[in-house]
Structure formats: structure tokens, C-alpha cells
């Protein structure tokens, strides 16, 4: 048997290597059990073997992305990032890849300070409970062909519902600290998250309209076939992707929208009174939220786990494409962070309500028109014009309409 004929069945199923691997492991493990328990254990093992790689994988990606971020920001700022920490007790420096490990150990061994007047139960629960929506959001994203943990019919709605429940926990965190500034910071954080939720959700309406379903698996399937079918290469797709990207930066409290955790503004806002591992948990929840939004953006606009060209489909696993696109999204997040200064709170709110909300509504109208006009250069002209012309008019108008109000002093009576 030649090498190619040996390799052919593997390559044909390379896409499914994880799924096949999981079934193989379950079949092997169940072997050792008495027959009466086999069904129950199979179900439980299947769930465990689905959840564990996702949890471990994204936690590892979190550690890796902190390293990527520090190196990336360093290079953007004409300096090297951390490059000293390698593996413990070994002489190789490994370009600083051991830095996340060192940071994790540092966070773990820090003293956990809880203020005396703080609400102890809430103070403890807030960071822990904040991780729950972050991890739940990963359960509806398709990572490959047949590799979605739960195939929900209303998957997209589940995702946004989970994102919305983050806000209450952010408030919990700020309130539990019994600190004026923490409360102020968490109020601002909630205001920011609510304001940007609208453009976030409305910019996905265009995708839902184009596909006709709320299920992420159906949305990704509708983008099969190569670059031309991806949603990002339509006029409403480009605008929708940009709006979604900006709104997800704001939802994740990420620069340039990181007023809630800005060091020089409000000294970490709702995170003031948290130290050590709880702070690390907040940090982790923020990054995991970022990854989830990135994964959603990929599934909605960038073709999910499909390859850019049809001939690459199948023998290069879909997971590879998904992770590659996710790394590109992370690089974009880091790039934007390194470029733009922080927005002030009122600038942020104005941007959300006066600019992004009208633009996202226009994107929805453009997506509907695209369906009627049918695509092609006429569609590009009409839908593109429908988005670009109001964009120019709105930006010019908002810029000119800025008026500097005379400062008013209101005294407490």
C-alpha cells in the first residue's frame, strides 16, 4: 500500500479528527465498565469530552493572548515586550512565553484583601459568577463541521442573552466594594455596555435576514464555498462587521473604550477593591468575552470554519481555519488598542447613540435592499450608497454640531 493510499482516508476525514477522536476515546473507556452503566456514562463522557477541550483551549488561548498582547503592544510602541521569562528552572528564554505562567503564579499568591465594610457574599460571587456567562457563550459557536457543543435553534439569541447578564454582575462587583468610586465606575461600565449592546445586536440583524435563521450553524453553512460567499464581502457585511467589531470592543471594556478600567481615570473603576486571583478572574472574563465576540464575528461575517478557497476545504480541518481567523481577530483587537487613545465617557456615549445606532439601522435596511436588488454591481451601488452617503452626512453633521457649552456650576443646596 503506497503512502497516498494510506493517507487518503486520513486526509478525507482530517476535518473530523476531533470528533472521531472523541468517539474513539469514549468507546475505549466505556469498554472497562459494566454493561448496565454504559449508556449513562457514555452520555456524561460525551459532554465532558466536549466541554473540557473548549475550556482548556480557551483558557490557554487567554494566557497566550496576554503574551501576544504585551509583545504586540511593545513592538507597536518601538520596544520589545517581555522576553526574559522562559520555563521555570530551565535556561532557555523562549521569547518570554513563560510570562503568562509567571503572571498567573503572581496573581495566585497575592493577598486577597476584602474591605471591612464590603458585602462579603457579593464581593466573592461577582468575579466567580462573571466567568459563567463568559464560558457559556462558547457553547453555541461552531468550531468545525459538526463541532458545535449545542446546536440551538435560537443560538444567536442565547449568545446575546448571556452577554446581557454580564452587566448585572458588573454592577454587583462595583456595589459590593462599598466604595463611591467603584460604584461610579460600575455605573459607567453598565451605561457603556448597555449603550453598545444595541448597535451590537442590530448589526447582526442583517446577517439573520440574509440567512433566515438564528442558528449559528445555519449561518455558517450559508457561507460555505469560499471567499465570495462570506458575508463580509457584501456592502452591508462590511459595514456590519465594522460596527460589530467596534461594539464588541466596547462590550469587552477594551481600549479605546476602557474608561471603566482606566488606571488614570478612575483607578480600575469597579475593580478597585479586588486583588490577586479575583482580579485575575475579572481579567479572564474580559478576555474570554473578547474571544467569544471574536468567534461570533467570525461565524457571522467571516465564514466560520470554512476555508477561503474551496479546494482547501476538507483536508485542512475547519478548526485550523477557525483558530487562524480568531488569531487574526485578536491581532486586530491588539492593533486597535495600540493605536487609539481612550475615549472620554461623553464621547463614548455620543458615539454609540448618535452615530452607531443610526448606522446599524441603515445596515439593516441595506441588507434588506440587497435581497431585493439581488446583488451584483447594481446592488453594490445602491446598498453601498445607502450606507456611505449617510455616513458622510452624519459624520460631517455631528462634527459641525459640536458646541462647546458654557460651563455651568450647580451647587448642592
Amino acid at each position, binding site marked *: 500500500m503506497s503512502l497516498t493510499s494510506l493517507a487518503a482516508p486520513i486526509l478525507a476525514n482530517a476535518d473530523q479528527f476531533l470528533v472521531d477522536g472523541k468517539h474513539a476515546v469514549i468507546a475505549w473507556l466505556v469498554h472497562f465498565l459494566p454493561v448496565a452503566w454504559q449508556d449513562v456514562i457514555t452520555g456524561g463522557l460525551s459532554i465532558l469530552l466536549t466541554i473540557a477541550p473548549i475550556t482548556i483551549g480557551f483558557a490557554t488561548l487567554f494566557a497566550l493572548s496576554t503574551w501576544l498582547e504585551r509583545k504586540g503592544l511593545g513592538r507597536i510602541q518601538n520596544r520589545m515586550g517581555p522576553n526574559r521569562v522562559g520555563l521555570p528552572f530551565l535556561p532557555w528564554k523562549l521569547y518570554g512565553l513563560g510570562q503568562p505562567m509567571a503572571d498567573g503564579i503572581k496573581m495566585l499568591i497575592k493577598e486577597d484583601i476584602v474591605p471591612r465594610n464590603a458585602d462579603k457574599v457579593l464581593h466573592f460571587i461577582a468575579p466567580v459568577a462573571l466567568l459563567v456567562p463568559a464560558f457559556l457563550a462558547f457553547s453555541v459557536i461552531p468550531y468545525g463541521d459538526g463541532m458545535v457543543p449545542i446546536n*440551538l*435553534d435560537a443560538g444567536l*439569541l*442565547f449568545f446575546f*442573552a448571556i452577554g*446581557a*447578564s454580564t*452587566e*448585572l454582575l458588573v454592577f*454587583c462587583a462595583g456595589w459590593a466594594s462599598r466604595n463611591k468610586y467603584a460604584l461610579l465606575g460600575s455605573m459607567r461600565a453598565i451605561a457603556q455596555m448597555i449603550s453598545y449592546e444595541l448597535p451590537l445586536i442590530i448589526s447582526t440583524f442583517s446577517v439573520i435576514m440574509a440567512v433566515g435563521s438564528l442558528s449559528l450553524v445555519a449561518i455558517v453553512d450559508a457561507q460555505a464555498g469560499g471567499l465570495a460567499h462570506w458575508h463580509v464581502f457584501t456592502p452591508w457585511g462590511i459595514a456590519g462587521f465594522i460596527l460589530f467589531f467596534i461594539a464588541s470592543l466596547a462590550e469587552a471594556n477594551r481600549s479605546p473604550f476602557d474608561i471603566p478600567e482606566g488606571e488614570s481615570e478612575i483607578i480600575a473603576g469597579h475593580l478597585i477593591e479586588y486583588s490577586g486571583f479575583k482580579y485575575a478572574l475579572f481579567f479572564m472574563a474580559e478576555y474570554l468575552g473578547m474571544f467569544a465576540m471574536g468567534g461570533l464575528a467570525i461565524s457571522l461575517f467571516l465564514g466560520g470554519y470554512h476555508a477561503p478557497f474551496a479546494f482547501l476545504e476538507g483536508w485542512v480541518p475547519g478548526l485550523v481555519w477557525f483558530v487562524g481567523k480568531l488569531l487574526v481577530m485578536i491581532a486586530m483587537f491588539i492593533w486597535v488598542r495600540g493605536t487609539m487613545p481612550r475615549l472620554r465617557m461623553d464621547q463614548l456615549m455620543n458615539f454609540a447613540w448618535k452615530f452607531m445606532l443610526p448606522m446599524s439601522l441603515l445596515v439593516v435596511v441595506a441588507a434588506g435592499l440587497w435581497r431585493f436588488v439581488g446583488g451584483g454591481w447594481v446592488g453594490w451601488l445602491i446598498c453601498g450608497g445607502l450606507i456611505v452617503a449617510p455616513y458622510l452626512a452624519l459624520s460631517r453633521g455631528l462634527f459641525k454640531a459640536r458646541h462647546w457649552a458654557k460651563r455651568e456650576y450647580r451647587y448642592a443646596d
Partner: protein
Amino acid sequence: MSFPLFILGVLTVAGAVAAMTLRNLIHCVLSLAVSFVGVAMLFLRLGAEFVGFAQILVYVGAVAILIVFAILLTRSGGVEPKPFLNSQWWIGLAIAIAVFGSLAVAIVGSKDLTSVALAEKTAPVKQIGIELMTRYVLPLEVIGLLLTAAMLGAVIIAWQEGDRK
């Protein structure tokens, strides 16, 4: 009565009871949010995916925060603990028993109640959309009108606040 349904029921009722009895108002709101989540999970158990997720999105994501803002804006200066039972507690108990009794009789004695705990098939979102656009379009438009009125009212109030010197 299956075990998961029992757990969900206990969670929802416990959240509601805690919302009524806890001293700290913010704790009350948070346990109310827990009971909202319990209701959402009951919806999911019945197979109504869309309604369950919408419940979380609207109630936990917006209404709970609204209640929190309302508490913080109207009770500045900390939350004072109130006594648990006021002097007319027995009237409240009587009314509660009457309402609960009538509802229970109506529900248990209704013809549509079957003993199947789980729905056989879940209502797809597409079906909900079609129904909303054909059979229930009038309530949809009326709700839209209502929301517009609420938004206009909020804008007008904020406008006057800003105009007031």
C-alpha cells in the same frame, strides 16, 4: 413531578421569597434576578427556546438593571433595613391565599393540562416570526407604538431636565 422541574421550582420560589424578605434592597434585586433566571429555565424546560432566552435578555439584562438604578437613584445614602412584617400582615396573607387558591383551582381544573412534562417538539424561531407577522401583527404594532411613546416620554423628560437652568 420530575427532579429537574422540582429543582427549578425551588430555585424560582426561593429567589422570590428572598426578594421579599432580605433586608438589603440590592440583595433583594439580585435574588429577584435569580428568580427571573429560574422562570427562564422553566420556559426552556417547556421547549420555548426563544421565549426563555428573550426572558434572560430582557429581564436579567435590562429590567433588573433598571430596578437597580431606580433603587440607587431614589434611595441615596445607603439602604436602611425595614422590619420584615408590618402591622397588617394578616390582610396580605388572606389576599395572597385567595389569589393563589383561585389560580390553582383554575389551572389544575383546566382541560388543557396534560401530564407530559416535556414538549415533543420545540417551536422553531421561524414559526414564531411568521405568526408574529401574520396572525399577531396587530399586537406587535401596538407594542411598537407603546415603546415609541415610552421613548418619547423619556426624551422629553431628559430634554426638560437639560433645559432647566
